[in-house]
């Protein structure tokens, strides 16, 4: 019990001390987000405990580069996903897909919400805005276990846009725990 907790704390410490991890506009992350108009700005860092191991998430926010699809959005959000010494960049809110109409204001919460076919799923709650309202967008990413990379789980995210309830991680676990959105 103590060992996983220690690992989680160690990962959080690693994220906090990650090169440039607390520096707004860190150019070190720019290479991970070629969609960005400029260096992504750090939003927040969180560690998510998976069934096996942990993954570190660094949320960044950026304006999309000219030429990127921009419907109603001013800012996109991405994740720097760190696990096993590897860092991956993933645009989560704003680019073409289920969140393309949103302007991302920042990550509110993240957590493991279950798995599908053995692939862990992480639920993410983002504060976002449309031209008319602010809302909480529930987004799902899942691990492609063969490729070893995290991907947007668009079917699950799409499913969540159509159901009742106030978005929360428990709400996501419940909604997707019944085999829906697959």
């Amino acid at each position: 019990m103590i060992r996983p907790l220690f690992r989680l704390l160690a990962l959080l410490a690693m994220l906090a001390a990650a090169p440039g991890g607390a520096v707004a506009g860190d150019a070190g992350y720019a290479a991970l987000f070629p969609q960005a108009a400029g260096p992504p700005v750090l939003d927040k860092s969180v560690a998510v405990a998976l069934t096996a191991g942990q993954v570190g998430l660094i949320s960044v926010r950026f304006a999309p580069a000219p030429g990127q699809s921009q419907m109603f959005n001013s800012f996109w959000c991405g994740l720097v996903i760190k696990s096993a010494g590897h860092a991956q960049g993933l645009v989560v809110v704003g680019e073409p897909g289920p969140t393309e109409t949103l302007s991302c204001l920042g990550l509110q919460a993240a957590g493991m919400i279950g798995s599908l076919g053995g692939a862990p799923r992480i639920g993410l709650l983002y504060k976002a805005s449309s031209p008319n309202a602010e809302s909480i967008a529930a987004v799902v990413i899942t691990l492609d276990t063969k490729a070893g990379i995290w991907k947007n789980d668009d079917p699950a995210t799409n499913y969540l846009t159509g159901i009742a309830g106030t978005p929360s991680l428990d709400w996501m676990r419940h909604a997707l725990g019944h085999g829906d959105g697959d």
Partner: protein
Amino acid sequence: MDVISASVGDGGKNIEADVKTVQNLLTRHVMWLVPLMAPAVTGKVDVGTVMCIRQFQDTAAALLHPDGVVSPHGFTIKQLARPMIPPPSHPIFTQSKFTPAPGGLTKADFDAAAKTLGCESAAIQAVAQVETQQAAFDALGRPTILYERHYFSGFTKDAYDATHPDISNPVSGGYGLFSAQYPKLHRAAVLDETAALKSASWGAFQIMGANFQEAGFTSVGDFVTAMMQSEKRHLDAFVSFIPNKPGALPALKALNWAGFAQAYNGDGYAANAYDTKMANAYNALSPPKPPPHAVKK
């Protein structure tokens, strides 16, 4: 008294009298079954009856997930029992071709708008640049919209929250794909056309249909018709709307971008950097002022 006593359709109890009732009701609403024909009234559930139920649920009940089953207390039987379900009638729903006037906004359009509002032409052009980063019309020529489910929930007094949560929900959000906006609007219009038109933001400036009066129209239908016509009509609506947004016009006249963005975009303006973008756009559009002459004594 219930219209049917038990479920009818795919996997239902399918009591003969109930099945006949549903088949008769489907026949009453045959216009919603196109391209299918009305089912034969046999009292037996067959593939054709189930297909008709699904089609009705999709078109006339506006359900996101038609399941082919009519429950005694569900939304489908409630719709089926109506004497008639009028289809949405606004041209945005009935037209198959959309031909907005070609061309965007010109300097003359902005000059005229500025004259009406009593502000600088560059100021209103800067606002337009920031507020209209999306196209005014979509690929089909329809005005660009964003559907807001929490508006529809409010206008319909939560009547559809339980049965249609993706289009009627007290919680804002759930927008989905840009291409999903018109299908959502259409489904909402099947339930309540006026509430649906008021629950989307329209055109280059994304003015909510609910604000049709502030935008200078006597009905939301007229507002939407104007939105279908040209980008100039979008600007006209925006010019009418600005003085009705408390604090917006004085801020625009004073080039107080934070004040304008707060009045027009709400408290989230800073997080989206609307004020900074407007200031930058204005500075790029407005010719630099000559430095003041030194006063010689």
